[in-house]
């Protein structure tokens, strides 16, 4: 098995439902026919049911029940529904291999934590919170490709991590010669996510050395913040180093950080109950 095999495994992954691809395409469009898209979402019954369950959760604080996608779009807005539908279909795309030792619940907890932290950080640096949420949710999907397609090799990654007390990326490099950031960005490309999201997934361990904060900075910091807030529930979790440049480009005051911590912790629990497959 080499890097080419892994990239081939990514290309062999099933596509997302067609309507999700259409929704993703609208992330880069200005004029969107939300009515037509809502009607298309409705055609996918499983997706519709899950999206409505999410829309009716306390996360959105809706007093009355929404029963159709059209209603959900008019109450929550098209952007929120697009994010929910995408999140539902992405989390439904991977199932644990029988006998797998990979810790799926912790994986999803960390992905959802990063999505929530990205969403909370984004408005502070004028990044779209819905895009940030999606990028945060996707950022580690490369790990899931490696763990579900190559379960035997992935056992060695887990052993390497335990032995060296290191993060996932160096352990994956040692075993596969490629890390989850590269695999994940290939997957984001395969699934036709917007380029900014592909870049954020590719660079989530590689901060820019200077310049204003971008979506990539938000996802880089959100991943670190999710570890720092101890949201994945793994005893041996560790916070990756945070660059001074990224810290400064976020430019948050002490009060703003405290608010980010509190809001992230609060949103996380609700989001987790809804999105955990």
């Amino acid at each position, binding site marked *: 098995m080499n890097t080419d095999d892994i990239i081939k495994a990514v290309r062999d992954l099933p596509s997302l439902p067609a309507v999700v691809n259409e929704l993703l395409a609208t992330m880069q469009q200005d004029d969107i026919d939300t009515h037509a898209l809502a009607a298309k979402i409705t055609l996918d019954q499983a997706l519709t049911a899950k999206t409505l369950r999410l829309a009716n959760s*306390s996360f959105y*604080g*809706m*007093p*009355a*029940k*929404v029963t159709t996608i059209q*209603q959900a779009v*008019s*109450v929550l807005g098209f952007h929120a529904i697009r994010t929910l539908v995408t999140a539902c279909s992405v989390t439904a795309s991977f199932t644990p291999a029988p006998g797998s030792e990979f810790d799926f619940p912790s994986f999803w907890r960390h992905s959802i934590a990063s999505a929530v932290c990205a969403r909370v950080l984004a408005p502070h640096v004028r990044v779209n919170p819905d895009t940030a949420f999606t990028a945060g949710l996707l950022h580690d999907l490369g790990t899931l490709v490696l763990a579900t397609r190559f379960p035997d090799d992935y056992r060695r990654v887990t052993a390497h991590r335990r032995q060296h*007390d290191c993060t996932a990326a160096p352990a994956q490099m040692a075993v596969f010669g490629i890390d989850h950031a590269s695999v994940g960005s290939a997957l984001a490309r395969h699934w036709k996510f917007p380029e900014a999201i592909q870049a954020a997934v590719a660079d989530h361990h590689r901060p820019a050395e200077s310049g204003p904060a971008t979506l990539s900075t938000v996802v880089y910091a959100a991943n*670190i*913040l999710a*570890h*720092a*807030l*101890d949201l994945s529930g793994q005893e041996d*979790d*560790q*916070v*990756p*180093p*945070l*660059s*001074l*440049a*990224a*810290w*400064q480009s976020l430019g948050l005051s*002490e009060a703003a*950080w*405290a608010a980010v*911590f*509190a809001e992230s912790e609060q949103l996380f629990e609700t989001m987790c109950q809804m999105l955990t497959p």
Partner: protein
Amino acid sequence: MSITPTPNEIDLQQAAEGMILAAALLDAHGGVLLPQDATLTAATLASLRRRGIERCVVWSEAEPVDPAALARARAQQLARLDRLFRHSAGSDGGAMLLAQLRAYREGAQP
């Protein structure tokens, strides 16, 4: 020790006169039925039931906590922070994030 009100989502069945809304109640079209911080009365409760509202978010006051237990919980949280930052407290941004989180954990309400 101060008691902090926190938002608490409850069934309308559990809602009682005198409770204060922590979030505005909206109808299915996003129209405001009752604003945030409105006090529920017998009349508004009856009206909400008629409209088929099932849940609402009200302020509820957290129970006071034993100070010794609180101190132990704080100490545990700070020790956990040190463990999580075991490889990154030395990075410049990491040290600053750790400082903010320490302040947050030390000052946080129970």
